[in-house]
């Protein structure tokens, strides 16, 4: 399988991630909205686990994810609210990340092409500064990145 991910910055405040999945859209949609499936893959970097994964998939419903570093006990979480849900095509949420300023609007789309799904996720940050911070740390939409590795990167830069 050669599903390569594409990450771009379409504007000063946005990050766009696109990817193809070898499964029909309803299943990819479920994999993003059913906690019992989300918990199996949205685990963050190696060494992290996901002890909290609560999702109320209704318009106005809330979700909360927490990741836990199994070595030193650090935790990182995000919480959000569903603004729009059109299963299995599109989800719009607004979320905040622990330790990060401002709210991020996250639009996820699932385009069904039979056996595969063209998937996009657009994160609109409240400012360019917040977006760049998220890019630097990788701490976006549940990607709790290890500070140690970030530090390595900073030391190299």
């Amino acid at each position, binding site marked *: *399988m050669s*599903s*390569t*991910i594409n*990450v771009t*910055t379409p*504007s*000063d405040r946005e990050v766009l*991630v696109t*990817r193809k*999945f*070898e*499964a029909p859209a309803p*299943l*990819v949609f*479920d*994999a993003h909205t059913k906690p019992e*499936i989300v918990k*199996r*893959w*949205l*685990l*963050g*970097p190696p060494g992290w686990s996901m002890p909290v994964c609560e999702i109320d998939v209704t318009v106005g419903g809330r979700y909360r994810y927490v990741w836990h570093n199994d070595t030193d006990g650090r935790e990182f979480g995000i919480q959000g609210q569903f603004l729009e849900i059109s299963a299995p095509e599109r989800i719009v949420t607004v979320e905040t990340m622990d*330790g*990060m300023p401002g709210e991020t609007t996250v639009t996820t789309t699932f385009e069904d092409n039979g056996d595969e799904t063209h998937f996009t996720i657009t994160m609109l940050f409240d400012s*360019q*500064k917040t*977006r*760049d*911070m998220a*890019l*630097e*740390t*990788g701490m*976006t939409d549940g*990607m709790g*990145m290890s*500070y140690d*590795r*970030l*530090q390595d*990167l*900073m030391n*190299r*830069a």
Partner: protein
Amino acid sequence: MSAIKGKLDGKRLDATFFALSDPTRRAILVRLASGEATVKELTESFAISQPAISRHLKVLENAGLIHRGRVAQRRPARIEPKSIGDVTAWLERYRDLWETTYQRLDAVLADELTLRKRNKE
């Protein structure tokens, strides 16, 4: 965050991302990646005016993405390899992180597909 933040030069990064947000400036960088060029040479390569090229170069220079030489009046522009490396490293790191996660999702989707097929039979 605060421990990390101290290591970052936020202003510089703002300037870098701003510089990279423009398609013409990205095209200029691609051109400079193959070798230095003067404003005159760049004006010939791109269908825009000399002052416009100069403005773009100034933005790229402020962001530390390029370096302008001082050979008499020529001032050829060339790419600053270190700073380009910084930005690319961030984007690559970010992409790698997502890719690792999505490869896990690929496996979960494959499992679920098998399961759902079996349940239908």
